[in-house]
C-alpha cells in the first residue's frame, strides 16, 4: 500500500480559526491510513501541533516574509526527512511565495495546486469591486483610504455604519466618524496601508466553498449560511443550504477567474434578496470539513488535482448539515516545546529531550 505524504499549513484553531485542521480531517476521512500528514507551523503554540490524532509529524517553517528561497530550502529539508508528495497551503500570505517556488517544488516531487498570479490579483479586496462590476454582480461600494482625511471623505460619501477593512484580514463595522478613525488607527498599525472603507450592507451572511479546475469549471461547490458569528465576523457555526442563486454567483466568479484550487466566496443577502459579493478567499476556509460532512470532500479532490489525476465527480451534497465549533484544550509537555524550538519538529522518540537530559544527569 502506497502512502501519500501531504504537507498542510494553517494549523491554528484559535479566535480566528485556520483551515489546516479541517483539511487534514477531510483527507483522513477519504484516505485513512493511506495518508501521512505533515503539519507546517509558524508558532510553537499553533494548536494543531498539540491536538491528539491530527498530525503524523510537524515542522516549523519560516514566515513567508523570509522570502521564497528560505521557504523552498525548508520544504526541501522536510522532504529529505520525511518525503512529501503534495503541499496544501492554507494561509493567504503563503500563496504569493509558494507561487514563485511551485516549479522548483514540482522538480522535487512536491505537487501543489495554485491559482494564477492574475486570478490571485483580481480577487484582492481592493480589486473586487471591479471584478464584481465586470460580472454584473452586486458588491458594497468600496473606497481605498490611506489617511484620516480620506477616511472622513469616504465616511461622508458612503455614510454610516461604515466598514473599515484591513488589506488582508480583519474588518470593523463603525457607527460614526470617531469610531471609524479609531478603527483606522488600529487596523493600519496592524496591517499597514492602504485600508478600505466599505458601504455597510445589512443582511444574512452566506459562504460558498469550491474547487476550481483552472479552466473555468468547478469540480464541486457547497453553500452554507452562517448560524453563529464571532465578534471577528467568523463563522463559529453554519449550516449547508441549497441556494442555486448563491451557487451561480460563486460559479460565475470562479469561472471568470479561471480559478485553480480551493477557494471561498463570501456573500451577503440583502433584505430585498440581492446577493452581494463580499470577498473571495484564495484557499479553503476553516469550515472546509462541513462540506466533507455534507458529502463533498474537496481536499481529497485537490490532492487528485495536484497529482494530475481525474477528480471524482461529486454527488449532490446534503442541505441541513450543520456544525458548531467545540473548543477544547490541547495539552503538551515541556519536551514538546523544546523539540519544536530546538529541532523545529514535533517530538520524536529519537530526539533527546531537555527534561530527560536533566533527569539523567
Amino acid at each position, binding site marked *: 500500500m502506497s502512502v501519500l505524504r501531504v504537507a498542510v499549513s494553517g494549523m491554528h484553531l484559535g479566535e480566528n480559526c485556520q483551515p489546516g485542521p479541517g483539511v487534514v480531517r477531510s483527507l483522513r476521512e477519504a484516505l485513512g491510513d493511506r495518508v501521512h500528514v505533515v503539519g507546517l507551523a509558524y508558532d510553537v503554540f499553533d494548536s494543531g501541533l498539540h491536538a491528539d490524532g491530527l498530525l503524523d509529524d510537524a515542522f516549523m517553517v519560516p514566515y513567508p516574509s523570509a522570502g521564497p528561497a528560505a521557504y523552498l530550502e525548508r520544504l526541501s529539508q522536510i522532504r529529505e526527512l520525511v518525503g512529501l508528495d503534495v503541499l496544501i497551503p492554507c494561509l493567504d500570505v503563503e500563496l504569493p511565495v509558494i507561487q514563485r517556488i511551485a516549479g522548483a517544488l514540482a522538480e522535487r516531487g512536491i505537487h501543489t495546486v495554485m491559482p494564477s498570479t492574475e486570478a490571485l490579483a483580481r480577487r484582492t479586496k481592493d480589486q473586487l469591486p471591479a471584478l464584481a462590476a465586470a460580472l454584473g454582480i452586486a458588491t458594497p461600494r468600496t473606497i481605498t483610504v490611506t489617511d484620516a482625511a480620506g477616511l472622513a471623505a469616504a465616511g461622508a460619501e458612503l455614510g454610516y455604519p461604515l466598514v473599515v477593512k484591513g488589506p488582508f484580514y480583519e474588518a470593523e463595522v463603525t457607527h460614526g466618524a470617531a469610531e471609524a478613525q479609531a478603527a483606522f488607527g488600529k487596523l493600519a498599525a496592524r496591517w499597514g496601508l492602504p485600508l478600505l472603507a466599505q458601504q455597510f450592507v445589512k443582511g444574512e451572511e452566506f459562504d460558498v466553498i469550491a474547487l476550481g479546475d483552472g479552466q473555468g469549471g468547478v469540480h464541486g461547490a457547497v453553500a452554507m449560511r452562517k448560524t453563529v458569528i464571532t465578534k471577528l465576523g467568523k463563522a463559529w457555526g453554519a449550516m449547508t443550504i441549497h*441556494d442555486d442563486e448563491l451557487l451561480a454567483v460563486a460559479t460565475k466568479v470562479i469561472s471568470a477567474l479561471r480559478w485553480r484550487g480551493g477557494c471561498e466566496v463570501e456573500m451577503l443577502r440583502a433584505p430585498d434578496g440581492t446577493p452581494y459579493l463580499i470577498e473571495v478567499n484564495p484557499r479553503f476556509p476553516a469550515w472546509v470539513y462541513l462540506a466533507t460532512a455534507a458529502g463533498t470532500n474537496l481536499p481529497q479532490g485537490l490532492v487528485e488535482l495536484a497529482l494530475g489525476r481525474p477528480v471524482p465527480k461529486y454527488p449532490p451534497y446534503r*442541505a441541513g448539515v450543520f456544525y458548531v465549533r467545540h473548543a477544547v484544550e490541547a495539552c503538551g509537555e515541556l519536551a514538546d516545546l523544546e523539540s519544536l524550538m530546538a529541532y523545529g519538529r514535533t517530538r520524536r522518540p529519537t530526539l533527546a529531550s531537555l527534561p530527560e537530559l536533566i533527569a539523567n544527569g
Partner: protein
Amino acid sequence: MPTPDLPYDPAELRTLALSDTGFIFDPRTGHSYSANATGLATLAAMKDGLDPAAIATKLRAEFKGGAAVEDDVAGFVDLLRELGLVRARSAP
C-alpha cells in the same frame, strides 16, 4: 401546473421538508421552524395546492375548528410571507 388563483405559489413550498414532529426545514436558507399540528396540516395542504377555503374545510374536518378558521388560515399565510417562505402574491 401554475395555479394563479391561489394567494401563494405551492411550488415555493415544495422544497420544504416537513416532519410529522412539526419540524420544518427550508434547504434554500438553512432556517428551521416548528409548527403545531394545525400549522403542519395547513402547510401540507398548501404544498398540495389547496386554496384557503379548501384548507379551512379540511382543518374543520380534522380538528375541532370554529368559525374563524378562514381567518386563521389567512393569518398563517401572512406569517409564511413574513418568514419569506412564500412570496407576496395578490389574491384573485
